């Protein structure tokens, strides 16, 4: 168990080091953050002073070594643009992204799993065929385009929902969340739906094929041979088995929801981490980009760990055996 965790952590560290090295090279290669920030009238001395102040006068590997050294002390540096600790900026934005991702995952699960179960159980019915075809379409629609179409349809043509921004937030345990107010919900709905659509189709198709697979198993035949009620066969025997892939995949997809929030947040002007990332890339605000990567990698590692634990919980075959 601990060996397993250590391996995961090392993996995370490697991802982070690689990605941050890339970012350092990137910022070095793309351009000069100062070109955007320094006052147009500034002369060479001004620019040199600022450059040295931000440590940008060094070659990238020196900058990188300094960064790694500082990171070991828990310091990820200050945003070039905002002047505040980069990690704080990212953490400030995290609740909005997590709220969006959780909402999307819940939508995907609540819609995708029941429909997938239906498609898996009744593959020949016309409704299942229709759902199946729609899920394939949902699987094929690029997230950003869905967002645009939602804005056009629900925001502009029908005028039912706001087209962007986060709306009113209320504090829950000191974290600002949208779900506390109607206005918050109205703002959350479209981006969450947009983000959910792909995952919903994915979960639907996964559930359907897992259900079909489970129905072919001998234990289902044996359960029928024992005269069990069909509902019990579906909701206990089949469901407990398909829950394993569903939970595993939802967990892993949660990571990609956070990644794809970059797109959704840009389309809907949702003030989350993803939007911060895109802005930071646009401004070459390297500390923020690196801090974003650190936070997301940490999130992904945590998610993977939770998924493994859940997996062990759901599937007795991999359960931690208590000491005999």
């Amino acid at each position, binding site marked *: 168990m601990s060996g397993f965790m250590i391996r995961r952590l090392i993996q995370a560290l490697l991802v982070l080091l690689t990605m941050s090295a890339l970012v350092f090279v990137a910022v070095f290669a793309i351009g000069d953050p100062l070109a955007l920030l320094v006052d147009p009238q500034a002369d060479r001395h001004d620019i040199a002073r600022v450059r040295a102040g931000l440590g940008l006068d060094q070659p990238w590997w020196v900058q990188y070594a300094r960064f790694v050294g500082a990171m070991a002390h828990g310091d990820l540096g200050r945003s070039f643009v905002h002047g505040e600790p980069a990690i704080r900026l990212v953490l400030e934005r995290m609740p909005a992204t997590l709220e969006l991702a959780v909402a999307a995952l819940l939508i995907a699960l609540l819609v995708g799993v029941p429909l997938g179960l239906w498609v898996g159980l009744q593959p020949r019915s016309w409704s299942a065929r229709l759902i199946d075809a729609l899920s394939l379409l949902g699987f094929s629609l690029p997230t950003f385009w869905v967002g645009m179409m939602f804005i056009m349809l629900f925001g502009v043509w029908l005028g039912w929902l706001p087209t962007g921004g986060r709306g009113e937030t209320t504090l829950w345990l000191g974290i600002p969340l949208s779900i506390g107010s109607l206005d918050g919900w109205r703002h959350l709905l479209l981006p969450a739906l947009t983000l959910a659509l792909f995952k919903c189709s994915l979960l639907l198709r996964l559930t359907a094929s897992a259900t079909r697979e489970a129905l072919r198993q001998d234990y289902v035949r044996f359960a029928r041979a024992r005269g*069990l*009620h069909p509902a019990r066969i579906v909701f206990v025997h089949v469901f407990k088995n398909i829950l394993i892939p569903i939970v595993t995949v939802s967990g892993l997809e949660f990571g990609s929801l956070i990644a794809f929030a970059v797109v959704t947040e840009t389309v809907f002007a949702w003030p989350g981490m993803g939007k911060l990332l895109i802005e930071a890339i646009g401004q070459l605000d390297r500390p923020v980009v690196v801090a974003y990567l650190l936070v997301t990698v940490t999130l992904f590692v945590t998610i993977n760990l939770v998924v493994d634990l859940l997996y062990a919980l759901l599937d007795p075959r991999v359960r931690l055996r208590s000491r005999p």
Partner: protein
Amino acid sequence: MSVLDVKDLTIHIGDTKSPAHAVDSVSLHIERGEVVALVGESGSGKTLTGLAIAGLLDPPLRRVGGEITLLGEDLSALPERQLRRRRGDRLAMVFQDPMATLNPVLRIETQLVETIRAHRNVGRSAARDEALAMLDEVGITFPAQRLRAYPHELSGGMRQRVAIAAALINQPALLIADEPTTALDVTLQAQILALIDQYRRDHGTAVLWITHDLGVAAGFADRVLVMYAGQIVESGPCARVLHAPAHPYTAALLGAIPGSVPPGTPLATLPGQPPSLSPPPEGCRFRARCPRAEAACIAAPPQVAAGEARTVRCFFPLVTPP
């Protein structure tokens, strides 16, 4: 009265235009406490016959004819809801692969208790006690501990015992056993056979034993039915059929067993393969491989010649059924 009486069971596979006639007019009956072995090569239709009796045929398999009477009740006329009440209660079925028949994510207890409570109005704890007793009866040591276990924590032999316990827990009148020992080692095979034999003696359960292995049938069954290409070609008391087979196919099966001839000498074999059943060949289905086939065998299908206790589907049987 027979526990089970099957008349002219016919099963088709696939679309209605050109279906494979997988099982063709199979009739059989089993008395209380009797063990009947249904023997045949893979593809002969023996498993389908078992599934059809239990009402477990799924598309593309279709029962297109025949009557199945269990304890005087015509199962073939029952709606699925009623049929379900019979399954696991009056008739039970166990399958070949003990690794796959138990649900891997449910405890043994759950799977036994649900079987009881699906058919009888028994409290949870009473059902649990029953389950415990049943595990004990099928020879599982430390039953209370096993009850809490998941299937993967048990060995293959133990799993098959649990599956048999789950099948028999409501004391069915008929047990359909579809090759339950094939996947097991010879020693375990013998144990399972002994277990079922003992249970049958204790409770008078009728057993339909489906197997490809004449050897297993020989030591265990009262009567044997030999299937070839969807039809029963020979039936009769076990000892007599194996000792003096009437159908050339039965004879070939016996002759192919190593040990039937001195070591080093060639075994008796048959040329060719079983025929395709969509559609089945005209005349005798065995004739293409039969050493005794004549013109008559092509012209018309042989009728069942029935003696007192034996039947044979052949124009030229090796022995005449008495």
